């Protein structure tokens, strides 16, 4: 006899409280953004650089990446002449402006910035590889 009355009273007391709670609980969007923020670093984990790892690039890798980059450069007139020793102007038929573009592409590929003076000296694949190997920041 007393129990149902008690239940009713409790329920009645809980209901308005519950209703007043809903508007607070409603902002689902901030919650998802919070979730997303929490997820974000985990999703990017692949791109996070581990500074403890030996970051040095091997010469073959650098050479391969530069040759690939040149292969995809549409102004290289004769792709068969592409070799680790090829000269941009003499072998690949690039002019000085194309060389500037190649150097820019190399900068982008290895996430470094090459100062004007050094960039001026890069005329062959060899020189580019050598320069990258001397850059501890290149990756």
């Amino acid at each position, binding site marked *: 006899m007393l129990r149902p009355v008690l239940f009713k009273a409790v329920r009645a007391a809980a209901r308005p409280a519950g209703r007043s709670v809903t508007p607070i609980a409603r902002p689902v969007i901030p919650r998802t953004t919070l979730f997303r923020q929490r997820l974000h670093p985990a999703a990017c984990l692949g791109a996070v650089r581990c500074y403890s790892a030996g970051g040095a690039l091997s010469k073959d890798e650098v050479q391969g990446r530069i040759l690939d980059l040149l292969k995809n450069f*549409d102004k290289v007139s004769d792709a068969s002449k592409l070799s680790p020793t090829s000269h941009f102007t003499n072998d690949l038929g690039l*002019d*000085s*402006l*194309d060389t*500037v*573009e190649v150097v*820019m592409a190399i900068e982008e590929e290895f996430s470094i910035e090459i100062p*004007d003076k050094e*960039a*001026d000296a890069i005329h062959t694949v060899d020189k580019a590889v050598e320069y990258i190997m001397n850059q501890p920041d290149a990756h």
Partner: protein
Amino acid sequence: MPPDPSLRHQVIRIYKELLFLGRDYPLGYDYYRARLHKAFASQAGLRDEDKIRRGIERAEFVKKVCGLRVALQM
């Protein structure tokens, strides 16, 4: 007699800046790059320093216009 090497660097710098501004050119980056390359290559024979300076000024003007267009699009 080759002109002042600092002018050469200035030209290269403005070439790079213009290339960068053309990244989202409506007709495609390759089109833009080819045109820009042609425009610069056509002036490659300049040996008179004043003429080169004038060329750089013209490039600066183009850069301003390009930058404005990029800014207005965004």
